[in-house]
């Protein structure tokens, strides 16, 4: 079973003459534990693709299947609890770390667990464990403003992983980091994908960051124009 299946996925913004197909006819499958990058210039439709898979942007056409469950087929399937699917199956990581400013590093991770029905105690234990494994044991009680860019991004990685999601979606996770920190974050993601057996889909416009990915899709103007496997063209 695939973690992510996308079939002829198309997203059109606007109507009539102003309609823009931000992504069209994307088809691919990603297995659990696979690390996939989407590489493309700004405005090529990467974020649109990611958010359509991430259940926050309704696809206009095509099919999306997450962890075996069809969520979209010519639009969302009726009767879906999108929030629940998001919190149980998907972890998000963004360019701007998107941590909640009034929560400490620890609480930022705990909140993701608590909204997923974990008790406070369980959430705290798991969050501490996770943050410590990401070398943030000394930063538990710091607010996001007191963290460095790399630290903040690691906290948001911890938050995305907290519920052990089947799918992790990362939109330009290294864009706000320097090369060194960016590479470290990518290494971390790779390691976690393997450990958690999660499919990780990373969007980036920086080809230096995609070293060691299992597969790399290249997007231009809303279309996937190439696919490389382990750095080799398919």
């Amino acid at each position: 079973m695939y973690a992510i299946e996308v079939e002829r996925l198309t997203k059109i913004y606007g109507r009539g003459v102003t309609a823009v197909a931000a992504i069209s006819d994307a088809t691919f499958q990603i297995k659990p534990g696979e690390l996939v990058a989407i590489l493309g210039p700004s405005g090529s439709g990467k974020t649109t693709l990611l958010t359509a898979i991430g259940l926050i942007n309704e696809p206009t056409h095509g099919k999306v299947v997450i962890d075996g469950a069809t969520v979209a087929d010519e639009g969302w399937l009726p009767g879906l609890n999108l929030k629940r699917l998001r919190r149980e199956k998907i972890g998000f990581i963004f360019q701007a770390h998107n941590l909640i400013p009034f929560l400490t590093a620890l609480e930022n991770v705990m909140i993701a667990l608590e909204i997923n029905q974990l008790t406070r105690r369980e959430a705290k234990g798991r969050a501490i464990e996770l943050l410590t494994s990401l070398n943030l044991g000394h930063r538990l009680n710091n607010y996001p403003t007191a963290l460095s860019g790399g630290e903040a991004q690691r906290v948001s990685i911890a938050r995305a992983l907290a519920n052990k999601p089947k799918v992790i979606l990362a939109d330009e996770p290294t864009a706000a980091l320097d090369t060194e920190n960016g590479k470290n974050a990518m290494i971390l993601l790779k390691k976690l994908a393997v450990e958690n057996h999660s499919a990780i889909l990373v969007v980036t416009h920086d080809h230096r960051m995609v070293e060691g990915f299992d597969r790399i899709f290249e997007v231009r103007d809303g279309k996937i124009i190439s696919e490389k496997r382990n750095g080799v063209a398919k």
Partner: protein
Amino acid sequence: MNLAIRDIRYNKGRFILTSIGLGLLIGVVMSMGGIYRGLIADALSILNSTKADIWVVQQDTNGPFAESSRIPEDIRYRIALVPGVAQASPLSFQTIQIERMGKSFRFFLIGFDLSESGGPPAIIAGRNIRQKHYEIVVSKAMKMEIGEQIRLGLHNYTVVGITGKMVSSSGDPAAYVTLADAQDIQFKKENNAIRNDRERIGAKVAELTGYSPAQSKLLKQNIAGITETTHTINTVVVRLAPGANLQAVQERIRRWNHFRAISDEEQAEILVEGMIEKARMQLGLFRIILLVISAVIISLIIYTSTIDKIRVIATLKLIGAQNRVIVSLILQQSLLMGIIAFVIGYALILLTYEKFPRRIVLESFDLQALFAIVMVICSIASFAGIRKALRVEPAEALGG
């Protein structure tokens, strides 16, 4: 995890400042309720301390507080004979304004019969009046010392005792003298003035034609009597004998003696409804206006703080937080702000109410009702913010 409290903890300064501002507003609302209750307490203070069953006053008047009432003193003896009356005590009331320590100073002077009821309710320093003349008991608010002398009318009066918080229905502090002294102060003029009056009226009468010399002499004597009489009082307060029927006694006094016999309950109504109604409406209107202002302010605060948190809310939605998590974040903050503002307002009143020129009475029912109203206002005020929050798209969390 309670997000509302985390947010407040992080933005302490801002939250405390807005709560203090709201607290001041709520304090004012609270004090207005207290002022109104104080007005009632003041209006009823003499009534309650007199512990009468019936107030006998001049016919067709709402006396002796709301309207002036004058009745001859000797009526008391006739009323005392009415079956069912245990005690009939004469009382006189007058407002006095004198100069004291360079300032004009008003108080309410009560004249009572030493052997009857209607005197000072409790002596907190010194003693009650013992002599028939020239002693005065003042209330604490007059800030006079025992032994101090005060000139009223033609004589000096010595403060012999201090009584607690007694005020007239218009809030002036009360003082007590014997009935005879009160009548002296009210009616006894200087001898020269009396003589002048007598001569003047006598001369007028003498000019009248149609009287025989004997008749006009008699008239002249009677006039002298009228201009000199001091035996007028304002009310006779009646205490009923055990088992006596209030209405029956009222009816008797009314029919036999042609006076109005007002029950204590009716008197309270006259005082509260007649005299305070306007103030109540005024204060009530102010309170409503202030509560509406509070509601608008809370709405604005909650709405802007929601706008400030759009990204946080979008992130919460993105990671799958349920609507209740987001609604309670906003609603709880609003309610907490209300609670803290209420406490601040209450503390403010507790710290300052002694310094208000008029009495402030905080009744627990009023406080509870206001608290409930504040909570309702906070809930309603957060509607706009909650509506906004529920419309935030999770995708708004994306991007720089």
